[in-house]
C-alpha cells in the first residue's frame, strides 16, 4: 500500500512514520537496535524501534557526545561518553522520541517506537510504501515529531492498491540550529 502524507498546506511531509496495525506485534529487536553518532550526526537520523528493544548509541566520533531525550515516550540521558555505552537504552513505550546531543545542538534524531510490523517512513515526496495484511480492516497511523496533537489515526482503514492521502497538521517551528559554518560578522540593520 502507498500513503501520501501532506501537511495542512498540501506540502509533502517527509520523514513521517506511516503504520497500519491489525493487532499483531513484532518482537523486540525486530527493527532497528542501534543509533550511532557519526560525524556529529545521528546514524540513522530516523529510526523505527520495536517496543521493548534495547538500543545501543555507539559513538563513532572522536569527540564526546551527550545524547538525551526529554520525550515522554522515553526520557533518557547518556552523559558525555566515547565508544558504545555499556547500558543500551530500552524503549518500552510506543511513541515519538526525539533525541539530541547536549554538546552539538544541531544533532537531531527521531525514534518511532512502535509494535506493529507494518510500517514505512515517507520519502522526500512524502510517500511511503508498506506491506499490509490483506483483506483486513486495520488502523492507519501517521506520526511526525512536529505534529500538532497526537498525529493521524484511522481505525477502520482498508488497505488497497490505491494510494491513500493523509493530511497531517504540523506545528510551526523555528529553523533548527545549523552546523556552524565559517564565522560570519554580525548582521547589521542598516537602512
Amino acid at each position, binding site marked *: 500500500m502507498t500513503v501520501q502524507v501532506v501537511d495542512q498546506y498540501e506540502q509533502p511531509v517527509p520523514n513521517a512514520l506511516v503504520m497500519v496495525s491489525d493487532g499483531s506485534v513484532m518482537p523486540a529487536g525486530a527493527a532497528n537496535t542501534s543509533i550511532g553518532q557519526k560525524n556529529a550526526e545521528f546514524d540513522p537520523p530516523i529510526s523505527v524501534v520495536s517496543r521493548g528493544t534495547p538500543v545501543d548509541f555507539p559513538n563513532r566520533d572522536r569527540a564526546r557526545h551527550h545524547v538525551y531525550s526529554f520525550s515522554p515516550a522515553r526520557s533518557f540521558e547518556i552523559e558525555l561518553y566515547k565508544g558504545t555505552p555499556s547500558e543500551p537504552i530500552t524503549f518500552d513505550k510506543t511513541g515519538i522520541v526525539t533525541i*539530541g546531543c547536549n554538546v552539538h545542538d544541531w544533532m537531531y534524531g527521531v525514534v518511532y517506537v512502535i509494535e506493529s510490523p507494518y510500517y514505512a517512513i515517507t520519502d522526500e515526496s512524502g510517500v511511503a510504501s508498506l506491506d499490509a495484511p490483506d483483506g483486513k480492516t486495520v488502523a492507519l497511523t501517521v506520526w511526525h*515529531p512536529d505534529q500538532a496533537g497526537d498525529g493521524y489515526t484511522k481505525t477502520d482503514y482498508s488497505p488497497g492498491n490505491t494510494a491513500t492521502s493523509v493530511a497531517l497538521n504540523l506545528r510551526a*517551528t523555528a529553523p*533548527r540550529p545549523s552546523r556552524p559554518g565559517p564565522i560570519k560578522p554580525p548582521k*547589521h*540593520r542598516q537602512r
Partner: protein
Amino acid sequence: MASFNKTSLGLRARVLLVIVGLLIVSQVVALVAVLATTRSSAMSRALDDVELGRRIFAEVFDTRAAQLDNSVQLLARDFGFKSAVASRDEETIRLALVNQAQRIGSDLMIFQSIDDQFMSAGMVREPERADYDHLLNVAISDNDSSHVVVALGGVPYQIVAQPVFAPGQVGWIWVGFELGDQLANQMRDLTSLDVSFVLSENGQVSGSSLRPAERADVAQIDYDDALTEVVTSQLGEDTTLTRSLPLVGDDSAHALLHVPLARALQSYRTLKLQLSVVFVVALLLSLLFASKLSDSITRPVLWLLAAARRIGGGDYERPIEVTRGDELGQLAETFNVMQRGIAEREESIRHAASHDALTDLPNRAVVDDRLEHAMARARRFGQPFSALMVDLNRFKEINDTLGHTIGDAVLVGVAQRLRELVREVDTVARLGGDEFLLLLDDCSADQARAFVHRIQDQLTAPLSIDNVTINVSMSMGLAVFPEDAEDGASLLRRADIAMYAAKEQQVPLRLYEKGQDEAHLQKLALVNDLVEAVANDALILNYQPKVRPDDHEIAYVEALVRWTHPERGVIFPDQFIELAEESGNIGLLTDWVLNESVRQMREWQDRNLKVDVAVNLSALDLLDEDLPARVADILKRHGMPASRLNLEVTESAVMTDAGRAVSTLKSLRDIGVTLSIDDFGTGHSSLAQLKQLPVQVLKIDKSFVMSMANNHDDEVIVRSTIELAHNMGLKVVAEGVDNERSRDLLIEFGCEYLQGYFYAKPLTSTDYEQWLQQHLNEHAA
C-alpha cells in the same frame, strides 16, 4: 552763479556721517559674511554630528540586539532549562526567566511551549493570552523574527525571539525591551543625541529622552522625511534638528535623533558675541577717529565762516590771518582779496548813490543830509544860512540845437564854476536837469546877494566847448534860513519859487518874498480840486449858439466849460484852464468837455433836437498825438457822426508848434470832424501858414467885432478878414455880436455865422432848450 544745495546738516556732521556710515557698512558686510559662513559651517558640522549620531545609534542598537540575542540563546540552550521545560517544571522555568531578565536588563522574558500548552513569564506584568497569540503570529510570519517591535497591552517592545530545542523545538523564549524613556536615555548616553521612539501604527511617542515639554512636540515631526534628510522643527522652545531611522525591517517603529539647534550653533553663538564686541569697539574707535578727522577739516572752515560773516557784517578793516599754505589757506587769501574788493566797491557804490554821475556833485540824496546839518549849525550858532537855487536859462534850447553832448558839457562846466566859486564849507549840489543848489553857510540874505553879485560875471562868462562858444545865463532864487522857512523842504521850495520868479521876470536873482509860497500852494490846491471836479463831473457846460443871420437857423453851439468851486465860488475859465495847462491836466479837462458835449449832443438828438457842438481845444491838446484817437473813441461811445463835432483851436495855439499842430489837425480832419480857427487876428500867422491848415471855419476875434461899431479901423479889419476867409474858401464866425449895428454890418459883409449876447449869452443846456424854442417861435415865419 554757483548754487549749493541747502542742507540742515553741518559740514562736520556730514563728514562724520560719511566716515562712520562707510565704516558701519563695511563692518556690517564683513560681520554678516563671517557670521553667515560660520553659521553655515556650524550648521553643516551639526548635520554631520547628527549623521554620525545616527550611524552610532544604528550600530549600537543592532549590536545591542545581537548581544541580547546571544544572551537569550545561552538560556535557550541551557540543558537544565531544557530539562525543566521537558518536565514542565513551571517554577524552575519562571525563576530562570526572571534571573535572565534581570541579568540582561530586559523588561520582558517569556517562554511559550511549541504546542502552545504552556507558558511562563519572567516579567512584572503577566502577559495576556492575546499577547502570546500576537507574538506567535509575528514569530511565524517574520522569517527574521529575532528582531521585531510588538505592542503588548499598548506598550511597544523591541522583541528578540529565541527558539528552544530539546532537541526538537519545544518552545520560544521572547525577550523584550520596552521602547520607553529608559531605553531612550540609555541610547542618548551612548550617542550624545536625544532619542525618541515613534510607532508607525499610531504615531505614538513611546519613549523619549527629551523633557516633557519638548517631547509633546515630537509627534509633529515627519519621521519619513527625516529618514533621508535633517528636519528642522520646533520642540518646546527649542528649534531642533531631527533625523530618523527604522528600528526594525518592517518600519513599524522609528528612532528619532534630536539635536537642539542652539547646541549645534553653540560655537557660532560664541563667535557672534565676540565679533559683536569687536564691531562695537571698532565702531567706537572709528567714531573717535572720524570726529577728529572732521574736526581737522571743519575747524578752519568754521573759522573762515566766522570771518566771512564778519565781512558780511561790514567789517572790511581786519583781514584774515593766513597761516596755512593749503587750499584753505588759499581760500582765506581769496577772502582777503574779496574783502578789499567789497570795501572798494561799496565805497564807489556809496559815492555813486550820493553823487551825480555827470558832474560828480552831491545829489538830492545828500542835500537833505546837508540841510539838516546846516540847519542844526544855524540854530546852534544863531547864524542864518542861504539856499540858492540856480537854474540855467534856455538849457533846453542848447540841448535841442547843439545836442546832448554839448548840453552835458555845459552842465559840467557850470558845475565846475560853481564849485570853484563857493567856499569849502558851502555845498554845491545838482538837483537834476539844469538845476543846481548852493547851500551857503553862515550867510544872510544880504551876504548872499553880495555873493551872487560878486560871482555873476565869472558864472556867466561864455563857455568854450569843442571850439563852440556858448553863452550861459542863470536864474537864481534865494531863500534864507530861518527867515524864510523853518524846515528844509520849505526852504528849498521857496528858493525854487524865487528862482521861477527870477526866470519869469528875466532877472538874474530874486529873493523869496513872503506869501509867494502860499499863493503857490493855493494854486496847487486848486489844481487838485480841479482834477477832483473833473473826476466827479462837478463841472458844467454852457452853450452859446451860432446863428445863421440870413435864415435865423442855429448852425451849431459852442460848448463853454464852467466851474463853480464849492468854497471859492466861480473860478473863471481862463484861470482854471491855465492851471490845467500848467499842471499838465489839460488833457483830462479836454476829454471831459469833449465827452460831456458829445453826450449832450446825443441826448438832444434822442429828443429830436438837432444841435451840432463846437468844443475848444488847448494849444497843448494839439501837441498830444493821441487826441484824434480819443476823439474818435468818444464819438463812437455815444454813437455820433464826426461831422457833427466842430473843434476850435486858437491861432496862437497853432503857431506854438506849427508842425505838430498841423499834423494833429490833419488827423482830426481825417476822422471827419470840422475844424475852426479861433480868435483869428490876435496871432501872428502868415497867410501861407493859414493856407496849410485843414480848417473849414474862421472865427474873428471878438475884440474886433465888439469895437467895430465904433471903430472904423476894426470894421475894416473885420471886413477884409471876412473877404480873405471867403477867398480861401472858409466860412466865417463872428464872435462878440452884442448889438444890432454890429449884426447888420456883419450881415452886410457876408459873415456866415453870428455869435454873441445880441442873440444869446452862454446858457445851460436846459436854458438853451428854452431859448431855442423861443427863437424858433420868433422866426417861425
